[in-house]
């Protein structure tokens, strides 16, 4: 774990694994040190924004270090992340999916399995939002079956339709609205994951458990 200077008003805490990011994010949400105004998890880092009138970087470094001391963060020898993760209060979200995405067949070929098996593996895995980014409400959802890990498409699409359910690398996600995108599109949901006219606007927040379910099981039996 390293704490990197990020200007006078933030620290960037770098850890070794996504599990450790989730753990630290949870701890910082639960036990927010004084003067912390923003906590932004990402793939291997947690950005901690501070209010210089209420704390200073040196003091905050010490407080984060002591958070990390007890209990021990998940490591290679420790218990699995889910067991030690101090979860942020985040709801669980069910995402009904029609698995008819334009890349489903290609994903199956690349993963060496049938499309039905891709669907089953995507449905079965326990998923959780690790962090958000790219666009408002776009969640990087972790827990993807390792057999489905594929690099992004060589050529990103200029327009991905809203509600597209996609996979790339170790993540799955739902495009909140029409945008460019390089992930493999395996399905579509009618669930609106980001809506500025709703409170909360974002359904998929860091720490949320996510269950993908088949939207139209009758269709799957065909």
């Amino acid at each position, binding site marked *: 774990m390293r704490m*990197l*200077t*990020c*200007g*006078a*008003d*933030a620290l*960037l805490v*770098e850890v070794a694994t996504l599990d450790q990011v989730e753990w630290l*994010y949870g701890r910082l949400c639960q036990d927010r040190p004084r003067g912390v*105004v*923003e*906590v*932004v*998890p*990402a*793939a*291997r*880092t*947690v*950005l901690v*924004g501070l209010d210089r009138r209420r704390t200073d*970087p040196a003091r905050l470094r010490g407080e984060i270090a002591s958070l990390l001391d007890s209990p021990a963060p998940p490591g290679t020898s420790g218990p699995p992340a889910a067991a030690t993760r101090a979860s942020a209060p985040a709801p669980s979200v069910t995402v009904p999916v029609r698995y008819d995405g334009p890349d489903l067949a290609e994903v199956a070929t690349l993963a060496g399995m049938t499309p039905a098996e891709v669907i089953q593996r995507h449905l079965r895995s326990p998923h959780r939002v690790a*962090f*958000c*980014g*790219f*666009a*408002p*409400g*776009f*969640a990087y959802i972790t827990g993807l079956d390792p057999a489905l890990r594929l690099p992004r498409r060589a050529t990103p699409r200029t327009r991905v339709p809203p509600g597209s359910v996609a996979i790339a690398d170790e993540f799955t996600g739902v495009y909140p609205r029409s945008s460019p995108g390089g992930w493999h599109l395996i399905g579509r949901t009618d669930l609106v994951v980001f809506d*500025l006219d709703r409170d909360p*606007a*974002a359904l998929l*927040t*860091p720490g949320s458990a996510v269950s993908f379910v088949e939207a139209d099981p009758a269709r799957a039996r065909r």
Partner: protein
Amino acid sequence: MTAPRATPEPPAGHLDVLAAGPLATIQDLGRPGLAHLGITRSGAADRRSLALANRLVGNRPHAAGIEITYGGLVVRFARAALIALTGAPCPLHLTGRPVGMDAPIDVRAGALLRVGPPDRGLRTYLAVRGGVDVPAVLGSRSRDTLAGIGPAPLAAGVTLALGRESADPPVVDLAPQARYPLTPTLRVVPGPRDDWFTDDSLARLWACDYEVTARSDRVGVRLSGPALRRRITAELPSEGIVTGGIQVPADGQPLIFLADHPVTGGYPVAGVVVAEDIPLAAQCRPGERVRFQRYRP
């Protein structure tokens, strides 16, 4: 500074936009604390100038005003109003009569305000007593130009309601501002990824002038100058970004992130411009040069 002005509270009215110039958006102090949902703070690019404009008309600090990019705004006030313009100094005409920057201006019903192109700087702020009253989105009236959140950029024909939300009678009559330097020096705290660049590259960053390019916008000031070469060429997993971060994409040409920066990015950030100097960065216009100075807070 003088005693409080005895300004009668004008009834809330509206203003009509006759011309918006290259880009005019409604901005307040933004949406802090939502980056973990993928939502950036946004708000005025030069927060200091918006804050001053609000103070001059007795608004609360978070009141929404208009951020004018390179002048060109023409508005008509339906009712009497108290206004102030700050930031990049522009020639101002109120129904043909020249008026000044950085001071409260009494506006009569039906008056026409014309904002010319600035002599220096890029962004000018118009505050109206009571604030611009458009619906808030996630607690802010700011336009986030990257995500497309918040009120649409102004266009000719748009009518903006004015609010009644003001704090106190204005107490400042004139707040003269220093001229913008032609080649500003921005103080930069090295990191978090300065170690990803070669020593030579970092030395050039501190020693050389960089030119502001025309591709600059509210997302960032895009620069052109000696390229920064990487020592570590691995791919950087996306990480959180702060305003003022100097990111170096694959072509080695740095950019300084402003208010509408993405919440995360996958290119290393060599240093961060201190908050106090971000207003200067936000006022840099294409063709001008900037310098960076290493700074330890």
